[in-house]
């Protein structure tokens, strides 16, 4: 992945990791002084790709894995307590199974009109027109 600054692309380290190693990798980053920047979800027909971005000064690192289906993702709120909004959003909008979020809206963070509107996974979407009346 590259970041753009006026034509000068800056490479960022993107690592594809296993879900099981997520907490360990994130703790190591926190211990090294990194801060959380964002958690991003992208859905295709078959996958929901999660990208966890962390920043230190101008540097950025990204951990990436597929969380579609029954994959159970541990919450990183014990390490970065401010991550709860991102995780609630991912669960409500994409249907990612994130476990034990410290502040939990139980599927109602935005209270949206559609079920998992950001997910494009064909099998699990109940109907093509989610909730727009």
């Amino acid at each position, binding site marked *: *992945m*590259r*970041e*753009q*600054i*006026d*034509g000068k*692309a800056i490479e*960022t380290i993107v690592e594809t990791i296993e879900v099981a190693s997520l907490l360990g990798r994130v703790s190591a980053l*926190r211990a090294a002084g990194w*801060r*959380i*920047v*964002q958690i*991003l979800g*992208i859905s295709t027909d078959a996958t929901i790709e999660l990208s966890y*971005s962390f920043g230190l*000064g*101008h540097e950025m690192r990204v951990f990436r894995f597929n969380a579609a289906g029954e994959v159970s993702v541990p919450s990183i709120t014990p390490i*970065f*307590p*401010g*991550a*709860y*909004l991102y995780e609630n959003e991912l669960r409500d909008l994409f249907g990612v199974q994130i476990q034990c979020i410290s*502040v939990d809206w139980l599927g*109602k*963070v*935005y*209270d*949206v009109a*559609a079920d998992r*509107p*950001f997910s494009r996974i064909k099998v699990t979407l109940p109907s093509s027109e989610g909730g727009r009346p």
Partner: protein
Amino acid sequence: MSASIEHAAVVRRAPGPTTIPFGPQHPVLPEPLHFDLVLEDEKVVGVVPQVGYIHRGLELLIDKRDFPDYVHVAERICGICSFMHGMGYCESVEGLFATIVPDRARWLRTFWCELERVQSHLLWLGLAADALGFENLFMATWRARELVVDVAEETAGGRVIFGSAIVGGVSRDPDDETLKRCLAAMRDVRAETLRLADVMIREPTVRHRLDGVGTLSHDDAYILGAVGPMLRASGHDYDVRSRNYAAYGEIEWKSVVETAGDSMARALVRIREIEQSFAILDRVVATMPAGPVSVPVRGMPPKGESWVRLEQPRGEVLYYVRSNGTRQLERFRVRTPTFANIPAMVAAFKGSSLADVPTIALTIDPCISCTER
């Protein structure tokens, strides 16, 4: 009939936590911000933010529009930082194409960014004054702000939604004479702003409500992921403008840092940034290069992904786009500053008294429309 009443024991409620709602329709904020405050007596012990009143799901519109047309949606993520949202989207798409924007366009983008920062911080100063019960300062600040908005309208074409960012540059090219005239008009605003800000920070009743209130510690601000004035008021020197996007690499400026971490520190950071932004505007106009203001961006975006970070009035914002090689991009994501600041805002509320909640909320300068998208 009355038996149950006669036999009911009247128990004085044991002291314990009480939950009260704050918002969504609250006079202090023009936007629906809603918290459930958990109180012990007058002291706030817990806060649960309730969002969703403004959620539109605009990120999903990305595959319904051609990529050059999505700028209109991106600008309307939030009316206060409209130009920067449009520009952030454009820069991320330019990243996909590896387009190099002409120099004059970079300078004009910097000009409008700083104009927007002045406008936004003045808006904040007015609302904060109003929340403190300082109504004539609110009115005076907004009168000064109108002159800045007039400059935006004259140079960019819009008062709140600037509408001048396009993929490949900017759509308007105000001539140097217009820019110099606008700067001259803004000298008065600059003097007036300094005077008003001085009134605000010297006033004992204001200091009483801001000094030592809503303190966010140095470590908490960082770990909770705070950005912008919120992070800098707690002593971190982190301003994304130092990444030298647009023309910031060629123009002298310095990030504003305070160390106290309380409401006053956040107010001071913004007040000093207004002054700084006026200085940057002067330098931008003085060094503005001549030349074209846009390059054509044609064809299909190449497959790939790209992201951009900018410093908005409220802090670091991150734009991400991914293309699958068609005119409609696959994914657009914006992580806005208030979204990142909410956990830190909750931390700042804890331990304060109920009466301070509205003023602390305002020193964070929340933008709910950004947050919920």
